[in-house]
Each structure stands twice: as structure tokens, then as C-alpha cells.
């Protein structure tokens, strides 16, 4: 049985979808604000991060144009996640096989400020991409989008236990990978961490 808060969230999503079907710009914005972290994190785990934001908007454009095909409005989250995964598959710039140098050349510099910082982003993203999908998506939502476990569960439709397991197991694997592949990350950033 769902909590009253979850029920309210579901009703809100249904309202947004129904309003969006009638062309409400406010509803488009609300749906985007709520689900863009989910879509973005899926795309970030599969495409070059320079393209992830642009593809996120493309994903919403596709979803809004096909809203009539969504039979169950409360399933908007899983539905748009499926669209995002399909878009990622058809993306001509997948993340796999991209060298660090290629990514540097194709990256827009608004997101990160220095080449060193960018290098760290690349290393972390490459390590993230080697994780199983469930761990990768949960960790991206947590570390990139800054969402809590409760928010991740609400967005993905997973149980709290599943999200917690994915976060912890994913983090353990990421620690192992970074300790092997990315000692620089730790070493370079140590002065800034200050425990």
C-alpha cells in the first residue's frame, strides 16, 4: 500500500500529464523539472556527457509529442525512461570507445571550469559507465543530480531497499574502480577534500 505522500505525488503526475495533453506549458515545465534528472542520468550513463542535456530535451520533445500513446499517465516516469534508453541507443555519439581527448574536444565548457576538473569528470564517468545499469543509474542520480534515496525511489519506481542496495553496491564497485584506474583523482583532489 502506498503512503499518502506517494499517492499525492502520483495524482500530481496524472494531473500534469492530462494538462500537458491539453497543451499546458506549465505542465510541460513541471514534468520536465520532475523527470529531467532521471532522463539526464540515463543519457549520461550511455552517451557523451556533452550531448546528454541536448538529448534530454530531445527526449522530452518526443515524449510530449506522443503523450496520447501513454495509456497510464501515472507511468510517465518509466515511460519516458524507456524513450530515453531508445534515444541513447540511436545516439550517433555513444560514450563507449570515446577517448578522453575526443571528449575534451567535443565538450562544451560551460559545465566544468578547468581542464584538470574536466579530466576528473571523464575518469569518473568512464568508471561509472563500467557499472551495471541499475547501479549506474542510481549512483548518477545521487552523485550528479544530488537526489536523495527517497527521491530516486520515487522517480524510478523502485523500492527503497532496492535503491539503497544499488547505491551501496554501486559505490563499493566505483571505489574499487577508481582506486585502480583513478589514483590521480584522489591525489589531485586531496587538498580540497579536507576531512
Amino acid at each position, binding site marked *: 500500500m502506498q503512503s499518502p505522500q506517494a499517492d499525492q505525488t502520483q495524482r500530481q503526475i496524472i494531473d500534469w500529464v492530462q494538462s500537458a*495533453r*491539453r497543451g499546458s506549458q506549465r505542465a510541460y515545465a513541471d514534468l520536465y523539472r520532475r523527470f*529531467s534528472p532521471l532522463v539526464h542520468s540515463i543519457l549520461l550513463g550511455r552517451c557523451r556527457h556533452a550531448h546528454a542535456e541536448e538529448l534530454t530535451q530531445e527526449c522530452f520533445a518526443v515524449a510530449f509529442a506522443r503523450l496520447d500513446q501513454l495509456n497510464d499517465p501515472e507511468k510517465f516516469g518509466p515511460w519516458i525512461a524507456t524513450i530515453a534508453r531508445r534515444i541513447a541507443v540511436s545516439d550517433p555519439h555513444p560514450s563507449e570507445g570515446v577517448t578522453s581527448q575526443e571528449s575534451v574536444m567535443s565538450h562544451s565548457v560551460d559545465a566544468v571550469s578547468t581542464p584538470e576538473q574536466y579530466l576528473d569528470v571523464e575518469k*569518473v564517468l568512464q568508471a561509472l559507465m563500467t557499472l551495471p545499469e541499475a547501479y549506474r543509474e542510481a549512483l548518477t542520480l545521487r552523485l*550528479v543530480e544530488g537526489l536523495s534515496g527517497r527521491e530516486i525511489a520515487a522517480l524510478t519506481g523502485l523500492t527503497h531497499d532496492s535503491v*539503497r*542496495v544499488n547505491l*551501496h553496491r554501486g*559505490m563499493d564497485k566505483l*571505489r574499487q574502480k577508481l582506486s585502480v584506474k583513478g589514483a590521480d583523482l584522489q591525489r589531485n583532489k586531496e587538498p580540497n577534500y579536507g576531512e
Partner: protein
Amino acid sequence: MVSESLSTNTDKDPLWDPTLPSDALVQALEQTLKPLRVKPNLPKEFIRSVQPMRPRQLASKRVVRWLSLAAGLSILALFLGHQYRLSWPTSKAWTSVFSDASGQASHIALLPGEHVRTATAQFSELRVARIGSIKVAQNSELQLLETSAGQHRVKLNYGQMRAKIWAPPGYFAVTLDDVDIIDLGCEFELWKHPDGERGLQVQSGWVEARVHGQEILVPSGHRLSINAQTATTPVRMGASTKWLAQLQILDALLASKNIDSDAINLSAQKLTALSSEADRYSLLSLLTRFPALADSAIYPRLAGYLGQSDQGNHRSAWRAGDQRAINAWWAKLPNQPKQWWRHWADAW
């Protein structure tokens, strides 16, 4: 162990709650990846560019869905109806309606082995299971031999009958003495007159006549005479008397035990000279039954009618009785014998 690192208390778990203080690596990762965070606001120009579905579009999609559903149900109903139409319990009686000149009608059931016999000014109409009907003319006798799903057989002892059948090839057949007439989905008339004249005439579709080991296909608009020894060539209704006379001569020469090649070639030449494109089926049937006629004038004339030429030694292959060569020209006919369903009008 991975499981050991799982926190069971979410209240004190910094991975679960980002507001709680976390270890150095998690903090470093958050700091490194934070710049990639998606911007929560959708650009206004993007929102303005989204075209919502108009009510008319939504309505038309609903209409398309309903039409698709209706079409699907209609196809299912047609399929089930067709299956029911072709089914029939073994040896179940057919119904027959007798009528006479006074207009009086009587219904009878006809079981396998039983006859329908009509006198002068008396007629009968039988339902052939669920696949069609037979009209029996006056002074005729028809016997029901067997009936079951896919196997309906009658025998015309004498007189005349007209069958209208819509079913796959071979579902219905008529025996006429030593000749079998196989329905290929069509409407046809069959007769055996007291003077011994026998024949059939096809109104629509195709019929196959099996006469003394020969299989002769008769298409719509053609008739076939059957004499005591053999079948002749199917001829179109409306063929000229001269052409028919010349065909009879050629048929007789071909049926003769003493083959006279010169006489056959001369006769074939005369027939060709009298032929028009409307006679192409008769010529094709002749060539099929007697492949040696490929040497005669019939071959090039028929090739012209069918838009073919002697490519790849087709003529010599035909002469040798090569079935592929023969089938290649049959395939050029606009109405193929196997396309029985195209004569759907015969269903009623």
C-alpha cells in the same frame, strides 16, 4: 564484502541522504560531478515549440483505433464464417427443392446413394452442403455419391445440370461416365444428351476435366466436347464456324493412331491462319496436350499473343515436354486457375 557496507539505517546513511556528512570520496565525486547536473528549467523557446495534440488529431487517432479493431473483428468473423461454410458432417443429407411448370414446390432430403430425377417440365435445385448449389434441368438424373467436408461427389446419369460452387479446388466433383469433372471454384454446365453428346461449358472460374488420363483445364467462357474416346480442345464461346471446323480436323489428326506429321503441320498452319488473340487459350491447351506441335506454326503465333519469344531454347524445351517451359507460358495468363477466391461472386 559488499553486503557488509550496506547501511540498514537510512537516517544515518549519507548515500541515502545527501544532507548528511559523507566520506572524502563521496564528497569529491559530488563536487566533481555537480557541474554536469541538468538544468531544471526547460527553455521557454522549447516549451513554445511543443505542439500539443489537437482534439481533431486525438479524435482521428481514436477513430483509426476503432476502425482497426472493427477491421480485425470483421476479418476474424469472415475467417470463422468461411471455415463454417467449408465444414460438413460426413453423409449428412443435402436439401433439394423440386418445382414444376405450375409453380408447385416440394422439399426433399438427399442422402448419399439417392437420386434426383426430373421429368418433363420439372426442375430441381440442390444445396451442395454449404459451398454452392446445383440446378438440375428437366429430363435429368443426378445421383449423390458422397458428401463430407472437402469431398462432395455427384454423378450425372443423363440430362443437364448447372453447378455454382465457391470453394477451394477439388471440394466438388461430378462424374460423367468415365470422365471426372473437378470444380476449381466456378460456375459451369454439364450435359449428357440421349444422342450421346457430352460436354461442359464454364461460365466463371476454371474446371478440370479428367478424360482417359488427360487433364484438361477449361476456363471461363469456354466449352469442351467429350466424345467416346477422348476430350477435344476447349474452345471459346463465339468462335467462328470455320475455325471450329479446322480445329476438329486437327483434333482428329492428333487423336489418330497413325501420326501424319505433314498433315498435322498443314492443319496447324491453317488453324493458325484463322486464329485471333481471343483463341490463345485454345492454342495453349493444344500445345500443352501435344508438345510436338511446338514445331508447327502455332508456337510463334501463341508466343506473339502472350508477349513471349523463343528465349533460351524455350521452343525445344517445350517440344521435349519440359514442364517448366510449359508452366512459364501458363503463368502469363491473366486469370490463374488456382486463384479460385477471385470468383467470390459465385458464393451467392
